[in-house]
């Protein structure tokens, strides 16, 4: 399968990366070269093989259902959470207006 300019522009939009026309144009052959190369996976007979979901067999653990089971990943650290925000106001993340 290969991609054209419109498809690359669509992917860029899905990925939320702004690209100029020239950038889209330049990326078409790059992506096609890589996609053409990964195409060889189609040769592999995978009949009856399940897609891998975990590389090392493991089970997801459950933690106790309590507040702040681990203080580092629990609550009460608003200042730390906001410390690196480009725009934080009144204890919230600030974003541009989203209502039309």
């Amino acid at each position, binding site marked *: 399968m290969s991609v054209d300019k419109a498809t690359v522009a669509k992917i860029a939009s899905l990925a939320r990366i702004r690209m100029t026309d020239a950038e889209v144009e330049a990326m078409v052959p790059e992506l096609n070269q890589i996609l053409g190369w990964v195409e060889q996976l189609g040769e592999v007979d995978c009949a009856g*093989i399940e897609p891998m979901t975990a590389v090392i067999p493991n089970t997801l653990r459950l933690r106790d259902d309590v507040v702040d089971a681990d203080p580092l990943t629990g609550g009460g650290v608003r200042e730390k959470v906001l410390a690196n925000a480009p725009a934080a106001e009144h204890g919230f993340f600030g974003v541009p207006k989203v209502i039309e």
Partner: protein
Amino acid sequence: MMSNLTELTVAAIRKGVADGDFTAVEVAEAFNGNVAAADALNAFIVATPEKAIAAAEAVDAKRAKGESLGKMGGVPIGMKDLFATDGVQTTAASHMLEGFVPQYESTVSQKLWDAGAGMLGKLNLDQFAMGSSNETSYFGNVISPWRRNDANGVPGNAALAPGGSSGGSSSAIAARLCPAATGTDTGGSIRQPAAFTGITGIKPTYGRCSRWGVVAFASSLDQAGPMARDVTDCAIMLEAMAGFDPKDSTSLDMPVPAWEAGLNPDMKGKKVGIPREYRMDGMDDEIAKSWDDGIAWLKDAGAQVVDISLPHTKYALPAYYIIAPAEASSNLARYDGVRYGLRDLPEGAGLQDMYAATRADGFGAEVKRRIMIGTYVLSAGFYDAYYNQAQRVRALIARDFEQAFEQCDVILAPTCPSAAFALGDKTSDPLSMYLNDVFAVPASLAGLPAMSVPAGLNSEGLPLGLQIIGRAFDEQGVLNAGLAIEQRAGFTAKPEKWW
């Protein structure tokens, strides 16, 4: 004499500090001096000499009180700038995270500080760990301290790649800016740079080292590990880094073995598998010879050598270049200009425009390329053909290894298809860059422990590495085979100082 402290290994520094031959502060000062004098290598994004001194003072104070100094007591190290460090900028070598100052410490780095190590600084890397030559960093290329000799054995001037993505780590260790450093390996990012610079590095079994606080690239593959000058140092440091962490859902809930105490280079009764598919058409003669040397050394150590087959080897790299970008496109969706990192808000722009502008400005070309590939293979209509097919092939690659390990205990192969290449050699062709990881990626896809140890120098005076791959959880077997090779390779070469 103080001037040779920077030639010491982790084990020797630890012992010297514990025995009172020198102080931890003297060691930290010596390495701080080397770091400050090596700007030409661009191995560090930020140096933290004061952190190294503070940790050393704490170790010296403990010694004065007769307290235990820890597994890494008095050893200053470099920290790959992919590990979140509390109060110290953590960038993943990206513009996106320039100025990001974590309010918490990654589990792996915290364990190292708890073990008595100190931080010399944050090491440069490929941007978001995506690259094999350290040419995608927003903070500039890292230069290898090694130089390629011409036909008369005279060192040339061409700047060589230190490998990637842990290129700051490899360059700094080879140049004696630090005795050891952290690395991370998603598809060879510890082993390939180690091979390029004549040092040693191990990627443990997936899940041994916590991923908590490590900037995510491809979560089903990302694994931290140590890089150092020899196998013993890797065993020491891996012990300090590994261990169960409830904050990482894929962390292995298993005790950390005593790898250092368990080191044993006697290979009697062990079988070493030689995968025939790794002997590819057009293989570099010197790489082939180093592989043959490795086989002879392990035989000399008592091992029996057996021919094995890993039939899906050639599909590992294309599978990796679907799976890793797919996971990356998902992981890197978090960089939205809202919670942390860069924000680019054009005049009058709305939220969606802000996302797109921020990500256009904050990501480098290779990162964008991988996000685009990942977004495409995960998009409606293509998910099964690309992503699911790659995950099926991945299951077959893992099965190849399982079957091989019914016939052998460890696998020996080259780490890379070539010695270090020059900067700029492969940047115009992403595929040729990707192919450099052809021998490293299969073990990553299967989550297996794998290490690179120096085998010798090629005719141009550049280091070559040998790779040992082991069964899941058998880091000990990998380290032991590595030690057997190390003792026979007798690798003592180091780059001549030009920087």
